[in-house]
């Protein structure tokens, strides 16, 4: 019994330590973010941010688009099979449009970015730690948080919401294709229905979620990298851990945000 309590206590302390480290890292990055901004910050840091934006965003666009189109089709087909029985096939448009804008767009994007970039952040920073590159930065009077983390976080904050919007567009486009082939609904009329069904707060809540997901992915990925101890095997473990933890936290945050918006934002 004592052993079980001990392990529960240890696990709780470890989790609290992890959350505390994430918070400390977040505030340190926010303080350092000014240096990564264009015009007012450091030129080289902004260049690094742009490189990160290309890697996180542009390179992920084909994958996110394809995922969104497939999911849009699946959602439309599954919805149609039930709604058809009630003669409410038109509500497939609402289902796809609102479903993607509020929920699926940000969530799918976050899962794709977590798998691609969260793991890449952990591997890159973990390798820098193992090869003493982070120590090199410190002895060169450069802060790793400012030099490595701030560009990644800023890039994620800019690119993940943009990817979410692209994901929404692709998902809704898949809905249009389904409606065209199943009911011969013209794309213009589909677009009209979509515009009627989506409210501004749907878009805003989706973007708020995206920003939160970007924060989780960037910080969990980087923290896993900074926590690497030992050799290359530890880098591999941190990469896996970054994906697992960030995906879990993204879904947890999604549930929390959805609950908050459900009770506070009136449709």
């Amino acid at each position: 019994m004592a052993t079980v309590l001990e392990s529960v206590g240890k696990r709780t302390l470890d989790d609290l330590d992890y959350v505390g480290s994430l918070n400390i890292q977040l505030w340190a990055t926010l303080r350092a973010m000014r240096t990564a901004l264009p015009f007012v910050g450091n030129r080289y840091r902004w260049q690094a941010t742009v490189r990160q934006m290309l890697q996180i965003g542009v390179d992920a666009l084909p994958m996110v688009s394809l995922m969104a189109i497939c999911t849009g089709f699946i959602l439309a087909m599954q919805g149609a099979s039930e709604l058809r029985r009630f003669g409410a096939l038109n509500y497939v448009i609402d289902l796809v449009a609102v479903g993607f804008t509020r929920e699926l767009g940000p969530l799918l994007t976050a899962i794709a970015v977590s798998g691609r970039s969260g793991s890449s952040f952990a591997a890159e920073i973990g390798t820098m730690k193992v090869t003493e590159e982070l120590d090199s930065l410190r002895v060169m009077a450069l802060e790793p948080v400012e030099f490595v983390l701030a560009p990644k976080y800023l890039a994620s904050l800019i690119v993940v919401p943009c990817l979410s919007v692209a994901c929404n567009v692709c998902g809704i486009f898949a809905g249009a294709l389904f409606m065209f082939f199943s009911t011969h609904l013209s794309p213009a009329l589909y677009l009209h229905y979509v515009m009627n069904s989506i409210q501004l707060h749907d878009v805003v809540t989706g973007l708020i979620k995206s920003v939160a997901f970007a924060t989780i992915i960037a910080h969990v990925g980087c923290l896993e990298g900074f926590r690497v101890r030992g050799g290359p095997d530890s880098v591999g473990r941190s990469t896996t851990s970054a994906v697992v933890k960030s995906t879990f936290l993204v879904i947890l945050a999604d549930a929390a945000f959805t609950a908050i918006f459900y009770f506070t934002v009136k449709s």
Partner: protein
Amino acid sequence: MPIISIRDLVVEYDGRRVLDGLNLDIGQGETMVLLGGSGSGKSTLLRQIIGLERPKSGSVTIKGVDITHCSGAELKKLRRSIGVAFQSAALFNSLSVEDNVALMLREHTALAPSIIDLMVWMKLAVVGLAGFGKLHPQELSGGMKKRGAVARALALDPEILVLDEPSAGLDPIVAAELDELILLLKEAFHMTVIVVTHELPSAFRIADRIAMLYQGTFSSVGTKEEIQASQNPRVRQFLDRIPGDMAHAPAVAAYFEKYLQTQEAYQ
């Protein structure tokens, strides 16, 4: 007044004492070699001198500033006058060799890009890498990486140059070339040089004074002539390459005898 002063330095990892009350003064323009076997605490001492770790107690004073108690800003300022080349070279793999050398100049000076390019070329020329600036670290041999690390350490013309195991893993010719380079740098730039090594020929070639570490304490500190003439048993063991009792023969024999007796008892 010494440029570096170490007083009663104690370092512990998880309760295990690694450095035990060290005292050492290093004068301006002096080449101090920290000599000792594997696990004697050389690299730990070096990490204390460059401020990467904080000790349990004691002080490390560089240019009159106690780096164990100074603020982050003071430490950053001080680090600009210290150049460090790590054992693994720790060049940034994502940057070319010339960008590695240019990094500190871009970050800490307001020099025009053309001046920075010229300075980078000069630093690379000093270490014999003038034609290799465009290459990335992974395209260089071990010796070239180490020379690249020295060039980067020299970027801001530091007053103190710290080299961790510069000749480890290199063939005797490249190691000798690095020794000559260290002597050249000292003569040309009047730097204070601290070298961590366990390579005896290298130590006696470049040192003004040698501090011999054994199990976290200095077993002997003196000029190379004094060290060579020392009758300290630890120094003699190291210099005369006398094997220790790591593989204590009687103990190993007793272990095997006991093992065989156990096996016979089972049969």
